[in-house]
Structures are given as structure tokens and as C-alpha cells.
């Protein structure tokens, strides 16, 4: 999995930096200087990393980073939570924050976390009250209405 991630990421960075250099060639010198100065070395580094990942042996993880769980169960859970995130975003756009926030909190707690009814309803009400009180009533942050409501 790390090897596939490295190859995929290197390929994306290689293509992105290639496009960045190509696009910069059409700009005035003032605007193109920095993207070219960074984009060209980045393309070379990404190519090196891609070749290294493709032909080299799998390296032991040694950067200052967290260790991720990569077994099959963990992979399924990651995909599921990523789906919840996308659903939350879609709900915000379609229904607006004021409906999406309590709806998401309740559904996640009930369906995903499998909490009981009292816990799901109670926590949803407490967190929504805190969210509404702080961001809407106190700070008057302009949360737009949703596309549908």
C-alpha cells in the first residue's frame, strides 16, 4: 500500500508540476519567475521519487509522521468515514449549516457509532446548542441557507 501510494502521489505531483511549468511559460517574466524556479526542480524530484518507488525496494517508513493502520478492516473504515465527510459537506450545501449540523451529528452517532437513542439525541442537542449559541447567536457568523431550504 505505501508503495502504491508513493507511486500514485509522485505521478500526480509530476503531472501537476509539469502542467505548472507549461502554464508558466505563457506568462510575463515577472509572474513566471518563481513558478518556473520551483516547478522545474519539483518535476525532477517527483520523477526521481517515481523511479525510486517503481524500481527500488520497499523502504522502511522513517519520516517524522504518524503511523497509519493499513489492514483491510482499517481500509474499509477509512472509506466509510471519508464517505460520511462527503455526505456532511453535501448536506451543508443542500440544507445549510443549521439543518445539516444536527442531522449529521444524530445520524453519525446513531448509525455509525451505534450509540443508544438517549445518548444520540442528548449529545446532538448539546453540541447543536453550543454551535448555535457561539457561532450564530454570539458571533453572528453568516451561515448561508442551503440550496434546497
Amino acid at each position: 500500500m505505501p508503495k502504491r501510494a508513493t507511486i500514485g502521489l509522485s505521478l500526480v505531483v509530476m503531472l501537476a508540476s509539469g502542467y505548472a511549468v507549461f502554464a508558466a511559460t505563457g506568462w510575463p517574466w515577472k509572474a513566471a519567475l518563481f513558478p518556473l524556479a520551483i516547478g522545474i526542480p519539483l518535476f525532477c524530484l517527483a520523477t526521481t521519487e517515481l523511479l525510486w518507488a517503481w524500481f527500488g525496494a520497499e523502504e522502511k517508513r522513517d519520516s517524522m509522521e504518524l503511523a497509519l493502520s493499513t489492514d483491510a478492516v482499517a481500509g474499509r473504515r477509512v472509506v466509510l468515514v471519508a464517505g460520511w465527510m462527503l455526505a456532511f459537506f453535501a448536506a451543508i450545501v443542500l440544507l445549510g449549516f443549521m439543518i445539516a449540523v444536527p442531522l449529521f451529528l444524530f445520524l453519525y452517532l446513531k448509525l455509525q457509532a451505534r450509540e443508544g437513542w438517549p445518548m444520540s439525541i442528548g449529545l446532538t442537542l448539546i453540541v447543536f446548542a453550543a454551535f448555535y449559541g457561539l457561532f450564530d447567536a454570539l458571533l453572528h457568523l453568516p451561515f448561508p441557507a442551503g440550496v434546497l431550504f
Partner: protein
Amino acid sequence: MSEALLEGLLLVLQWKALAFMSLGIVLGFWVGLLPGLGGATTLALMLPFIYNMQPVEAFAFLLGMHAVTATTGDITSVLFGVPGEAASAATILDGHAMAKKGEAGRALGAALASSLVGALVGAAALALAVPVVRPLVLTFGSPELFMLAIMGLAFIASLSSHGGRGLVRGFMAGALGLLLSTVGQDPQAGVPRYTFDSLYLWQGLDLVPVLVGIFAIPEILELAARGTSIAGSLPAGKISRGAFEGVKDTFRHFWLTIRCSLIGTFIGIMPGLGGSVAQWMAYGHAAQSARDAEERKGFGAGDVRGVLGPGAANNSKEGGSLIPTIAFGVPGSTAMAILLGGFVLLGLVPGPDMLSKYLSVTYSMVWTIVIANLVTVVVCFLFLDRLARLTGVRGGILIPMILLLVFVGSFTSNNHYGDIVVTLAFGAMGYFMVLAGWPRAPFVLGLVLGKIAENYLWISVARYEAAWLTRPVVVVLIVISVAVILYPLFQARRRGAHA
């Protein structure tokens, strides 16, 4: 000077100034905890309220609020891996890793104690340095400031992973950050770069949604993948213990804390670099303090020095950035630029008057930083046990709460849905970077430094052409950068020869 220092203290201790400072501390405390609500934004929101205040009261209110945001920003970084402030992102790498090992109390203790030491060093620097800092600031022109940015990037890129391949990955991540910082309207020619006809991208990528995404989303995904609480299956009693151990860590690594505080102060003094740069430079320095490669591997996995460095630098930079603001009217950061607006509102002119006629007001600012940080740290310690116990709450309950913080935090940066899209996109990128073993620290520093570095590079080239490369301070900084890049390779080679 000592008379003015005492007078400054007495001014701050007047009941009205103390009351306004307390109000500022309470506001700053919550602003620091909430991702997206930045200290600078809150300073701007509070400016209209100082019209009727005396200068000492107004600065006690504004600085009291601003001085504590970095301290409390570390709390969410340690507990949930969500940066409360852009300037507290570096604390996540080791602070949150410690929380996952059941050492949340110790990490918070270390973050708070080092923050206090940093604030005291920054305040002392402000008190002592005003008369002597002028030549230093004047020595650093655009070429030197550009090289300083590059040196910071070299530090973090070479130290964030190991060996030749680690160097490639570190520099690639840094370069990617620099390249993405060019998204938006170009400041020199006004050309929209990589905006894909999107008006949202014209202003460039906002730092808060990117930081929240790249750090918080992978942590949330990993928390879901493990299916446990942040601290795993450790007993709750163990999690909240160790706050005092964190304080002792600060004194165990006292010179590192002092050095990182000085780095923060120095970066604070330099106009335009700011707190986000200071924390990463300090983190790089803390990682460099590891005696060998084996010890360095502990960084990112929960080494307390990775918490002490950024914690100290974050708070010491406030004193540092006040120096050019007060002495020359040159703000060292966005927050200081807003504070400069406060000077104007109160009818004060930064410059020589602040060092003579209004010296006691200047020193009242020093005392405000000291007192506000002392109060915050003491208050935080009172609640530390309860805060640390949050890492024992089941992941299923925590995840929707953290996600809410992430979404609202990123949305409130610009009140635009694009902010959430950016958070999700960089969240996915952060996850794959971690999976592939690419360090995120150089990427973030590249993104932070990109705009500054481009401006300084362009001014250097336009003003001096290639001759900027031969300026003495530039040459010294180039030599240091090359040494920093080559040192890990040299160290690895020497280790290979010994084996």
C-alpha cells in the same frame, strides 16, 4: 529604565487595565481553542471597542487577548490533532502522537510550560532589545530575508526524514508547498496563476483550511480506522497524569526551550516571516538536537522536544514582533499590523516617542504579555486533567464533534464553501502523504513561506540582479543552508564507516 519598567507594571496592575486584560484573556482563550477563528481576525474585530480606552487599558485588552491564543491553540493540536491556530500546527506532530500514547497530560504540561518560558523570553527581549535591534533589522534587506526563508525550508526538509531518499521527499514536499503558494493573482504582474477561472482561487489558498485539512483529516481517518479512543485502550487514570512531568521536561531540556524561544523572537523581529514560520524553524532545530539518527526517529512519534520547541517559539515571537512594531512602526506580522491600527486609533505614533515619552506604555505591553501568559498557564493547569481525559472518549463520539470543528473552522476562514472543498482536498492529500511516508512539515512551511519568498526574490533580482547572491549575510546563509542539507548525509556516511 528600571523606573519606567516599574511604572509600566503599576499601570497594568490598575483595576481597569487588569479588568480589560482579563476580558481579553477570556476571549483569547476561546479563540485559540476554536480552529479557524484566528488571533489576528479577533484583534481586528475588537479594534472598534478600544476608542474610549486609555492606551494602557487598550493594549492590556488587545495584547492580553492575542498573547494567549497561541498557548490555547496548542491544546486542540495536542488533544485532537486539529490546529487551533495556524501557528500551532507544528505541535501536532509530536504532541498528538504523545496523546495517542496516553501522554496527553505530559504533552499539555510541556506545551504550556514551554509557552510560558517562550513568552517570558519574548517579553525580556522586547524590554532589552529595543535600543539595539535597529542595526539588525537594517542589515536584513530583501536578499537576506529571502535566504532566511530558504534556510528555514532547508532545515525542515533535511531534518524531517532520513537518508538520500528522505532528502528528496523533504525537498519535494517543500517545493510542492512553494508551488501551491503561487496559486492566485500574482503580486507583480497581476496575472491569475493556476486559478482555473475560479474567483475563489484568485486570492490564493488560505492557510487555515489547508492546515486544518492536511493535519486534522488524516488524524480523524486514522482514529476511525483504529476504532478506539485517541489514547487507545489505556486506562483513563494514566492519561491525565504527567502534566507535571511535562513541566519537568521543559526544565530538563531548558536550553533547547531557550534556544527555540530565541529563534521565535528572532523570526518575530524579522518583518513578514511570522509565527507559522517560527514554529517550524523551532521544530527543525528541536529535531536537530537529537544526538543520532536513531534518536531523531522518535520525532513525529511523540518526542517531548517536538512539543517544547514550537510551544516556546510560538509565544516568544509575540515579544519579538512587537519590537519593530513599536520601535519603527514596521509590523512583524498580520496581527502586529492590526495592532499598529490600534496605535493610530489611540493617537500614538510608533517610533522614538514610544522609547522616550511613552516608555512606560511600552513597558506596560511587556508586563501584559508576562501576566496574560502566567494567568493562562495557571488556569489551563487547573483544567488539565479534565482536558486530557477527552483523549479517552470513544472515537465514535469524538469523530462527529471534531468533524464539526473542522468544517466550521475552515468555513469561517472566508465564509465560503470553497474553504471546505480545500480542507477535504488537502485532507486527502495529507492522508496519502502520510501513507507514502512524505513529510508534511516541509510542505506546510513551503506554503507559508512561498508568497514571502517570491516577493523577496523578485525585489532582490529587480534591485541587485545576480549581485544579491554575493552580499556577505546572504553568503553566510547559503553556507549554513548547504551545511544543513549535507550534514545528515555526512552523518549517515560516518555511521556507515563506523559500522
